[in-house]
């Protein structure tokens, strides 16, 4: 029987013949950019969260959409320490799932935050009690008032009283506010209040006003208010049609170049994403590829296949040429070889599909050398997934 645990799997998957296969290829560069696997040794970069005194790895886990306890356990094994949830996520099921996982771990081995929607003091505190019951904990490390979008809301006396009461009761070690709109105004109001210790804010390379957000973040950091970043992936796609994926590792690193940001909480729903994000905990350096991949249009130059009709009919093997060209763009344009591999796997293409043709009949109107690109990208199908960082 095939017996291999997670750690051995991760170690072994980066070895083997696939390395030689990729030598002298652009794919090699992508493979070399792979960060350390979860659980791999390496110094984890940490930062202090304002005046709270909490020290956190720069990458944390947004649990929001994760419903798999194994994923949370793997995140903690990878060295991540901070887990972020909310009272309303999955109508409480998210907190319940986390509670089941975290009861296996010493309370001081993780830092958990939850968010409770703004409400009258008693209702707010009742919701906090319900969250704690679901989480099976006596306190959360950070309690946010959820999703405020104006300075007036931040400074509302009922909200401030509720947060103060939560902290005094010991049910919240620290209090904060989360915001994904009018962030500079919210951040500055939080600083002015003297009550909030942490702000969880949207920040990403696609925001029109990111410079203003960063300026407010700097002011907060100077005042000792800790900053945690969310929405770092900027929606995960450059385009509305979701055909041009954001290089998520690059986007995450972009945010973390700002030392005023203590940690980020990208949503993690796959082990691939976990591996990629955990790698950033050891390596914040941005390559030229990372930088260019964040410039809309620049990353797809000469790579974008418009899918004009006729390609597949002209191919004597009937290959789905536009899909294969899309896999090529995912790899070389967006640095997402895993997405390309998934696409190719679904197409069930492997080996050398162009090997039997002496001459290509496709005749791409964009001038793509189709057989060269096909041969190059199809090699991905023989690379272990975890090798593609």
């Amino acid at each position, binding site marked *: 029987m095939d017996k291999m645990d997670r750690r051995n799997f991760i170690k072994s998957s980066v070895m083997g013949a696939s390395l030689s296969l990729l030598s002298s290829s652009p794919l090699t560069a992508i493979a070399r950019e792979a960060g350390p696997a979860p659980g791999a040794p390496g110094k984890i970069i940490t930062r202090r969260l304002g005046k709270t005194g909490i020290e956190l790895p720069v990458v944390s886990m947004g649990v929001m959409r994760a419903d798999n306890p194994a994923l949370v356990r793997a995140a903690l094994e990878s060295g991540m320490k901070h887990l972020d949830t909310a009272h309303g996520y999955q109508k409480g099921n998210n907190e319940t799932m986390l509670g089941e996982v975290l009861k296996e771990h010493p309370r001081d081995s993780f830092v958990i935050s939850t968010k409770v929607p703004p409400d009258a003091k008693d209702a707010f505190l009742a919701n906090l009690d319900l969250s704690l019951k679901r989480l099976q904990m006596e306190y959360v490390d950070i309690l946010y008032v959820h999703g405020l979008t104006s300075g007036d809301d931040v400074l509302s006396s009922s909200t401030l009283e509720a947060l103060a009461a939560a902290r005094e009761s010991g049910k919240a070690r620290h209090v904060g506010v989360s915001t994904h709109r009018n962030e500079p105004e919210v951040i500055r109001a939080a600083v002015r209040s003297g009550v909030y210790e942490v702000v969880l804010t949207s920040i990403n390379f696609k925001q029109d006003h990111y410079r203003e957000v960063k300026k407010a973040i700097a002011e907060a950091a100077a005042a000792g208010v800790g900053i945690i970043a*969310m929405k770092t992936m900027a929606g995960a796609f450059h385009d509305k049609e979701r055909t041009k994926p954001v290089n998520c590792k690059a986007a995450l690193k972009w945010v973390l170049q700002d030392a005023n940001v203590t940690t980020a909480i990208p949503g993690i729903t796959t082990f691939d994403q976990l591996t990629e994000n955990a790698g950033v905990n050891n390596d914040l350096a941005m390559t030229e590829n990372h930088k260019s991949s964040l410039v809309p249009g620049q990353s797809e130059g000469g790579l974008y296949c418009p899918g004009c009709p006729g390609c597949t009919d002209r191919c004597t093997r009937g290959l789905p040429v536009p899909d294969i060209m899309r896999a090529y763009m995912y790899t070389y344009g967006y640095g997402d070889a895993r997405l390309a591999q998934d696409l190719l796997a*679904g197409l069930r293409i492997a080996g050398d599909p162009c090997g039997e043709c002496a001459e290509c009949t496709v005749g791409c109107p964009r001038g793509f050398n189709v057989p060269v690109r096909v041969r190059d990208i199809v090699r991905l199908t023989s690379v272990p997934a*975890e090798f593609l960082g």
Partner: protein
Amino acid sequence: MLLLITGGECYSADAANGSIFPTVAGWKIAPPPGDSVYTPDNLWDIIDGAAELFLSYGFVDLHIMEYTDTTGTDVRVELYRHASRANAFGIYSQERNPGYNFIEIGTQGYVEEKVLNFLCGMYYVKISSHREGKAGIDGMALIGRRVAEHLGQKAGWPATLTLLPAEKRLPNTESYIAENFLGYRVFHSAFTARYEGGCTLFIMDLESASRARGVAEAYMKAAGRQLELTEGEIADIPDPHNGSLAMLLKGRTISGAFGAGGEALAHRYMELLKVRLPAPE
């Protein structure tokens, strides 16, 4: 015209007028102040970070209406429309808890103080009221049933879900995972349910047998396994992240069992499931 005369009880007339909401005799109807329709572009504005989960389940749009009766009971109706019945069931199941107080409304619903939520075809319907006690619950149930009738959705659960065996299934634990099932990007569109003994069963019904085999092979590669899957035979896969997985490739379906009960129990449940699967085309 006759239908129009009957006023609030007339669903056909409402539909002819193009309203997604029914009128109800004795209740005033009005959209809430501000926005009453949301799309994927601005769903964040109303449900904050929870929007991401809704978007992953093919959220199409949200329509909101408020009803008020002569006693002052208020009822707010939120209609979340999704791209398919499976997606609507998926988001409903994500927020459902087996311990809720379930009622017969739409395909299924549950009621709590000030809240009544239910599944209705491609819609996930959320109803709330500020009125406490029986008056609030009765008001929500009345409006909810009118909404369910008015939407005119086909009753019943998604067909693939009904393939999971009923024997020893824990009530109201069924779910649909649209993407990244078990933490793998290659696994998607999975219906699951929990069973006695700590076992979870799942089934994915894909577009074709070829596609199913492609997904299964991609999973094996992602999990670092090199086992050959034989059509129609249950294989034990030592998944590096999720523990042992009993998996079956049959026609265009991939099904499996995993959980605390161990391999023997997983196999017993898989045998129950296997006989329910359609024969390969």
